[in-house]
């Protein structure tokens, strides 16, 4: 299937996206955040919690004075490493317990400190690379089924129940398992610790939980002879830390968007821009595919109207990801099937939108989200809407396919619901496997016209944003009808200007 679209408009959109990214990128390069610094510590090997249950990386970063923080945590921590001769984790624990204070080590020369840190940082990057190579090797040994890759969520709140559910889903055909996070975790300014069994509408993202799930999926991958991927959320106030943890535990994908937190979680935009950049640098290095969150425009407002905003956000996400060094093959741009099922020809509009994204981002793995908003208690109808979504996905060659579930409007999925959902996707994608290849949209027909309308409205939108500046545009409510001020929202206090001697070993090594 191939739409005739205005290629020049696409080029102009990319130009606007670059113009939009320029000032944002300039801002990013002059700033850091507490979460970026905490990720540096985590990568160096600092982990654990203090007596109050606060994570050690938080405790350390909080113990820094403002002036010190502007230099980045690395040098200061390096000084203590040199002086104490401790491993990072042991050192971290001592600092967190109050047994040691970072201020004690001010006299260690900067270069010595840097060298000490650099050694550990190399090891960290080594671990990231090993993990990436391991994934590569596993994918060779246990090849996945061809895309659309069936992506299935688990969300019991208890990591051990999640594990049961995830293994069952993999056995039933899932190729990617997402552990939905406990509600509100994106607003926590720290990452919970250890295995957890009480989440709400989802399970906490913790490094221990990542490891438990990864081990279970590795086991089932071997058993099924196909690699089952794992994904979680690098969103919210701990974006880069989760990216670090995910890299270490060999997650394969992460929800990670440059604007989602701003618009849908009221997280400060400066914080978000800085955090997304560093988290994406890590994702780039660890070979993790990001999934962006454009679906949220569609679930919270009218899906027919929001199509240009979705495309605009895809262009911006792409541009900002490129600037963090991510190759196209790791940029999973979001979209969703959310048009009212009772709209005449709604299916044609969905096909247009999905195919448009496919042609504009030919090398990116698109992430396609299922119907949720218009799902009701009528599971029979819902199953059909999911089928049309599945058909659209296979027709337009989507890559990461979140399976829609017939009980979407009722409860977080039951084990049997997941099986029915996977059966639905497998049936439709097989019976219509090459349908998309075998048809041509009628030139000037409804599908093509819709695609070009969306593209040209997107172009106008991006131009407007470029003219205004992204931060100002968000302030003016250009996206998702939501207005956010540059210094408002959660986590603003954690953003700081870099001092002239700011140093982040990973940033340096990953440039």
């Amino acid at each position, binding site marked *: 299937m191939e739409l005739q679209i205005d290629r020049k408009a696409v080029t102009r959109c990319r130009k606007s996206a670059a113009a939009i990214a320029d000032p944002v990128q300039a801002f990013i390069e002059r700033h850091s955040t507490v979460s970026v610094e905490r990720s540096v510590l985590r990568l160096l090997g600092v982990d654990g919690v203090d007596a109050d249950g606060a994570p050690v990386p938080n405790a350390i970063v909080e113990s820094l004075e403002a002036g010190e923080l502007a230099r980045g945590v690395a040098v200061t921590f390096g000084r203590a490493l040199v002086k104490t001769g401790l491993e990072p984790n042991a050192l971290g624990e001592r600092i967190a317990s109050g047994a040691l204070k970072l201020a004690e080590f001010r006299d260690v020369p900067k270069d010595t400190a840097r060298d000490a840190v650099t050694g550990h940082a190399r090891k960290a990057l080594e671990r990231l690379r090993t993990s990436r190579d391991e994934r590569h090797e596993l994918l060779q040994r246990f090849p996945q089924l061809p895309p659309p890759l069936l992506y299935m969520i688990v969300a019991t709140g208890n990591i051990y129940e999640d594990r049961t559910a995830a293994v069952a889903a993999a056995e039933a055909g899932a190729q990617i398992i997402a552990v939905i996070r406990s509600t509100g975790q994106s607003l926590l300014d720290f990452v919970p610790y250890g295995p957890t069994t009480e989440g709400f509408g989802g399970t906490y993202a913790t490094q221990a939980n990542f490891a438990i799930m990864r081990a279970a999926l590795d086991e089932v991958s071997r058993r099924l002879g196909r690699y089952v991927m794992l994904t979680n959320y690098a969103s919210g106030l701990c974006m880069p830390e989760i990216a670090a943890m995910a890299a270490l535990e060999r997650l394969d994908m992460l929800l990670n968007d440059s604007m989602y937190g701003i618009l849908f979680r009221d997280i400060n935009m400066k914080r978000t821009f800085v955090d997304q950049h560093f988290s994406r640098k890590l994702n780039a290095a660890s070979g993790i595919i990001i999934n962006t969150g454009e679906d949220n425009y569609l679930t*919270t407002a009218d899906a027919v109207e929001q199509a240009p905003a979705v495309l605009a956000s895809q262009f911006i996400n792409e541009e900002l990801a490129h600037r963090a060094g991510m190759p196209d093959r790791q940029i999973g741009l979001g979209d969703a099937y959310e048009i009212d099922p009772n709209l005449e020809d709604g299916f044609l509009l969905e096909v247009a939108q999905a195919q448009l994204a496919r042609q504009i981002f030919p090398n990116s793995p698109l992430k396609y989200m299922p119907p949720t908003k218009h799902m009701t208690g009528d599971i029979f109808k819902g199953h059909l809407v999911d089928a049309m979504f599945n058909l659209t996905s296979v027709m337009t060659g989507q890559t990461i396919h979140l399976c829609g579930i017939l009980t979407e409007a009722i409860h977080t999925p039951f084990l049997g619901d997941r099986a029915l959902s996977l059966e639905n996707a497998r049936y439709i994608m097989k019976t219509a496997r090459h349908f998309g290849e075998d048809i041509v949209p009628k030139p000037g027909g409804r599908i093509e016209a819709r695609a070009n309308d969306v593209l040209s409205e997107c172009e106008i939108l991006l131009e407007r944003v470029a003219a205004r500046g992204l931060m100002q545009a968000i302030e003016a409510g250009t996206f998702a009808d939501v207005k956010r001020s540059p210094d408002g929202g959660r986590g603003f206090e954690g953003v700081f200007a870099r001092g002239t001697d700011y140093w982040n070993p990973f940033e340096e090594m990953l440039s």
Partner: protein
Amino acid sequence: MIKPYGDTLNDGKVQLSFTLPIPWSEAADEAARQLVVKMGFADVQVVEGRAVAENFSFFIVYASTPQTIDFESLAIPSVKTHKMTMDEIDALIEERVGRKIRVAGACIGTDAHTVGIDAILNMKGYQGDYGLERYKMFETFNRGSQVAVEDLVRFTKEKKIDALLASQVVTQKGSDVKNFTALVELLEAESLRDNVILCCGGPRMTSLLATELGYDAGFGRGTLPSEVAAFIATRMVHRVD
């Protein structure tokens, strides 16, 4: 007395589906059958049974229930008996209450699903039916999402709210009932319960459940703003009289 209807009056036909935590086998089908017999059904047919994972099997069953229900004599409170238009409601309030009714709404607890309460309150409304903000005779306060019960009660007191609307969409592990109950209890503790018309809503709400929880009314899936407006207006008129 009525029964489920398959293709003949009173045949009692019901479709069931469920998962059992056992590997599939012929014996698993039989276990499913016996389980449904134990549930009290007759003429149990396991029409589908299959593995959905190594240790889980899924079943589809048709069976007849002997249970009946006396529909005629069911006394079910309904808050949607007579339909009224926006103009009629405004007129009623203007005439009989003589001032604007002050309405506050919120999605309480940790619930962030505001689409439902927004559908009732926002100007735009729901499915072509205008929201309360559009009415001349309502003064509305939409408190948004994740509003703590304490904050909402404080607000009610401060703003002399006449009608309070609480929403809960997440129902997992009974969180909705917990939060709704907390709201009533706090209102009572503050001696505010009798001052307000108290309504709750959400996709799983029913009038009966609302009454049991101590609310004046409850609104479920598909509620239109005008239904809520009519209820508030009528109640308010009663109070004034």
